[in-house]
């Protein structure tokens, strides 16, 4: 244990070093030298340290790797956001602080997960209700009607539904794997997906759909369910391509963005230029062109990250995500508690699909559908939700003895 904690301390120190260098560079980049970025960097270091110590005190360390790696992702995200838009960075700073707090709260709360999870009907119903309310009162921002605005503050209910969805799914499937249960659960997932589809939030709909499939497969172990899922997905994709013009636009922009660069292909082409411009080593922090990239602090943040830090750092970021998810799967495999296994696998898969869909989207590997990049993209709902999910993962990874 002593060896491991020395290892974590070294990681923590490298994180501090990384943040100090990046934010110092941002300070030096301006003439006259502007100390504000450095203050923000030191502030983030302080927050991370407080979070780390708090968890030590309450013996909530769980898998300390999760905390360190997610903070690295948040840090590099905050650097990029500061570089793109200073005022957004201040808000993002507050949300990261809130996110870390939520992470600790969820880590603590889910020590008692067996109590929390008795109310799956309530969670499921709340999910549907939140999504339904969004359809009725939702505001359209950036092409999707998935925002609720309350007295000037906007948030995305679909983000919070992710948490409810995972808890509800795991606790419902915990002791059910009959066909009729799967049917009931399937219709719940279908409703969620359709409600999101109605909000034109295709990316999020896809995330829920795929996560639903994972839940069913892990609970039943029958390959026939993922198979049915894929068939449904393909049929659904073909049908919506034929019926809905906004689906067609996305798909065509993916197949050949060069047909209409100023219009349909604009986002993806600008994203590819940025990624290409970066090369392996990047143009250097502050030397890229975020002003050419649309939605650069949210959905397309990976593109500017690769432009300025280079593809090697981009690949490192992907590897860090993969590392986080694989750790969660491994800890699910070593557990003997069905609920824990379901919850860990489901949450890791949900975050994995989200990461894959947006990075694959901005690199033209798959059609681009706008979702946030967990921990890195700008956005309160996204940051808090990602940290909540990670908090649950962390809690379930706690040593048996520390419970």
């Amino acid at each position: 244990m002593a060896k491991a904690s020395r290892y974590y301390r070294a990681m923590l120190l490298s994180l501090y070093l990384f943040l100090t260098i990046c934010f110092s560079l941002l300070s030096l980049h301006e003439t006259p030298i502007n100390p504000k970025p450095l203050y923000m960097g030191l502030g983030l270091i302080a927050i991370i340290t407080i979070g780390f110590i708090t968890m030590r005190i309450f013996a909530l360390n769980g898998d300390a790797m999760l905390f360190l790696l997610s903070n690295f992702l948040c840090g590099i995200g905050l650097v990029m956001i500061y570089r793109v838009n200073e005022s957004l960075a201040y808000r993002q700073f507050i949300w990261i602080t809130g996110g870390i707090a939520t992470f600790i709260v969820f880590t603590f709360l889910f020590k008692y997960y067996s109590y929390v999870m008795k109310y799956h009907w309530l969670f499921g119903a709340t999910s549907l209700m939140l999504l339904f309310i969004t359809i009725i009162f939702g505001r359209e921002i950036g092409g999707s009607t998935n925002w609720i605005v309350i007295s000037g503050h906007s948030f995305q209910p679909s983000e919070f539904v992710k948490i409810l969805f995972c808890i509800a799914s795991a606790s419902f499937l915990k002791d059910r794997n009959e066909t009729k249960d799967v049917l009931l659960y399937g219709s719940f997932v279908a409703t969620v997906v359709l409600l999101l589809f109605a909000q034109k939030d295709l990316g999020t709909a896809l995330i829920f759909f795929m996560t639903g499939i994972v839940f069913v497969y892990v609970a039943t172990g029958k390959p026939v369910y993922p198979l049915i899922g894929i068939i449904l997905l393909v049929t659904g994709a073909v049908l919506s391509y034929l019926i809905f013009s906004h689906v067609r636009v996305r798909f065509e922009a993916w197949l050949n963005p060069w047909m209409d660069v100023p219009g349909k292909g604009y986002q993806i082409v600008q994203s590819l230029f940025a990624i290409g411009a970066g090369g392996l080593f990047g143009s250097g922090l502050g030397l890229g062109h975020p002003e050419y990239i649309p939605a650069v602090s949210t959905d397309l943040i990976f593109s500017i990250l690769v432009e300025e830090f280079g593809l090697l750092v981009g690949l490192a970021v992907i590897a860090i995500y993969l590392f986080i998810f694989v750790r969660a799967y491994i800890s699910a495999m070593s557990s003997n508690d069905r609920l824990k296994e379901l919850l860990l696998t489901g949450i890791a898969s949900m975050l994995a699909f989200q990461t894959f869909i947006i990075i694959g989207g901005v690199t033209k590997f798959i059609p681009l559908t706008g979702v946030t990049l967990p921990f890195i993209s700008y956005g309160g709902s996204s940051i808090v939700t990602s940290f909540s999910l990670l908090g649950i993962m962390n809690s379930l990874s706690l040593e048996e003895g520390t419970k």
Partner: protein
Amino acid sequence: MRNNIRNVLIAVVLMFSSLIAYLLYFEFFMRDTLLASDYNRRLWEEENRVVRGSIVDRNGNTIAETVQDGGERKRVYYGGPAIGPVVGYNSQQYGRSGIEAAYNKELLGLETKNPFLLFKQNILGIKDRGYDVILTIDSSLQKTAYEALDGRKGAVVALNPKTGEILALVSSPGFDPNNIEKDWEMMKDSKDSPLLNRAIQGLYPPGSVFKLIPLSAAIEKIGGLEERTFKCTGSTDVDGLVIKDYNGTAHGNIDIRRAVEVSCNATFINIGLELGADNMYAYSGRFGFNKNLDFDLPTKMSVFPYPTSKRELALSSIGQADILATPLQMALVTSAVANGGTIMRPYIVKGITDSEGRISYNRQDEPYLSPITESTAAKIKEMMIGVVKNGTGTAAKISGVDVAGKTGTAEVEGKKSHAWFVGFAPADDPQIVVAVIVENSGSGGQVAAPVAKQVLNKYLK
């Protein structure tokens, strides 16, 4: 359950690995073409950071350079409309064309550079300079050819048959790249289409200059061709379609040699029908028809549609039907004869040098196609010398030098014919191949041959 989770894990790892593999593929195989796109605004940023390289001709004469004009950098072109369509323009507003477009990356020095050198330059604030592009063009020959066209619509291609170097690539009327911003609106919709490089993108019916191809096929496929006599009455009836000879002239009983000299349609229709569609199509392909040419500048593909009827076959053998060729393509056909049966791959960029004059790229000659044997080439060459000595091409005669040539007068529906001339000199050791077209101007022997003569004369002098 453990197995199920393991399978999910494997699926997720596979997803992410394929993403990583794709990104590496993107980085190493797709990135370069992507970055060179005209839509990439970063290139214009680069334009401000880097001093764009110069474009020079084969003798070191500057064609385009970037000069500091007070606080502003300016692109200056020398050579006016004669060379405009080749060198192209570089305008933030209207984009790029010609060499400026095709070699944009090199002119900006965008290839991967030593990162440490780049770092040093950034620190020291040294202005980066792009690479210089050296063309195979001879500016003074280019000028002569442009002036020989004298404002008429048309094109001239001159190349070295032994190496494939393009010596002149003229499209008339041209444009002066210095005035592109001023003249754009006028040129964009002009009937004369000065923005089109006719030499490589103009597709014309080749008329009788195309006869070199059925002639090649006939020499190689029809035994005893040279001993035969053909009868020409001035018009030929093919399945009810009457095809006349030029001006309805009856050439009488002539051999193949004389048929080439006087460009006898009756003889070539005869030969074409005897060869058949397969041979005609195959030989056109061997000379580069229906093939995309990999050239330094974007070219149009010359086409020989497979003749589906006797009438089409007859028309094809005299270069009519729906055959379309670029002047460059006809120059390549001629160069096969000039170079002992082998067409060298044509090129216009000789090399690229960096700001310190170090050569970073040097073009090597390479064979492109070998459509005919050396002996066939020699036979055709003899006949082409006859064309200029005592046939349709006498206007291309130069005293003291043997010129080989072939004229063409391509009929155009409802308008005057296109005048063609292809040829090379000196016949015994060809230094230069030339192809000339003057649109809607009359007969090849009268209009195009004198243009070719001026170009050959200038180069050999």
